[in-house]
């Protein structure tokens, strides 16, 4: 009987470990409303998603800045312009319930039935 309980416990622990790794923490924070896309092409933090997510967001933003900078150099524009253009795509992919940061309105949530918050300057 004790053995059965141990096996069951081990199985539960294993399942928890697997499901814990199944979803990316930044993705979870995004659907949980502590991380969202910004109009400038970077990820933003709302409230406190915890140190681990905070670090991952910072790392993603550094990667993005590097990508924006190299494309900007190739196209003869500023990295900011690349970021603002990237926001056309990243904001078009904000899911319902997720937060996003607009240039004029701060943080907002995309509610059910609302269109994706694509800035006016973006071409469709």
């Amino acid at each position, binding site marked *: 009987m004790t053995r059965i309980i141990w096996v069951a416990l081990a199985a539960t622990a294993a399942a928890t470990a697997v499901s814990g790794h199944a979803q*990316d923490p*930044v*993705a979870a924070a*995004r659907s949980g409303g502590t991380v969202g896309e*910004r109009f*400038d092409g*970077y990820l*933003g*933090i709302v409230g406190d998603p915890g140190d681990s997510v*905070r*670090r991952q967001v*910072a*790392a*993603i*933003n*550094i*990667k*993005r*800045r*590097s*990508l924006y*900078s*190299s*494309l900007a*150099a*190739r*196209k003869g*524009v500023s990295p*900011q*312009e*690349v*970021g*603002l*253009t*990237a926001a*056309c*795509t*990243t904001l*078009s*992919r904000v*899911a319902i319930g997720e937060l996003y*940061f607009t*240039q004029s309105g701060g943080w907002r949530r995309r509610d059910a039935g609302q269109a*994706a918050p694509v800035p006016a*300057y*973006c*071409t469709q």
Partner: protein
Amino acid sequence: MTRQRLIAFAGAASLAVPLAGCISVDTPDKPIEINLNVTIRQEVVVRLQKDVEDLINQNPDAFPQQAPKQ
């Protein structure tokens, strides 16, 4: 051969230098600040859009969970 190698090395070095300049950040936890005053002209968006979309689609580590438009 040596010359070819030298050219290849110089090429790699010239690529690596600007990249290193972008990546080597002393405090990775320092947030990238939001500048609310940035503006963009539509013609620039038009010129960049295709390349930027490719950049996003080809770098899922920098753009995680960016599922195609719903």
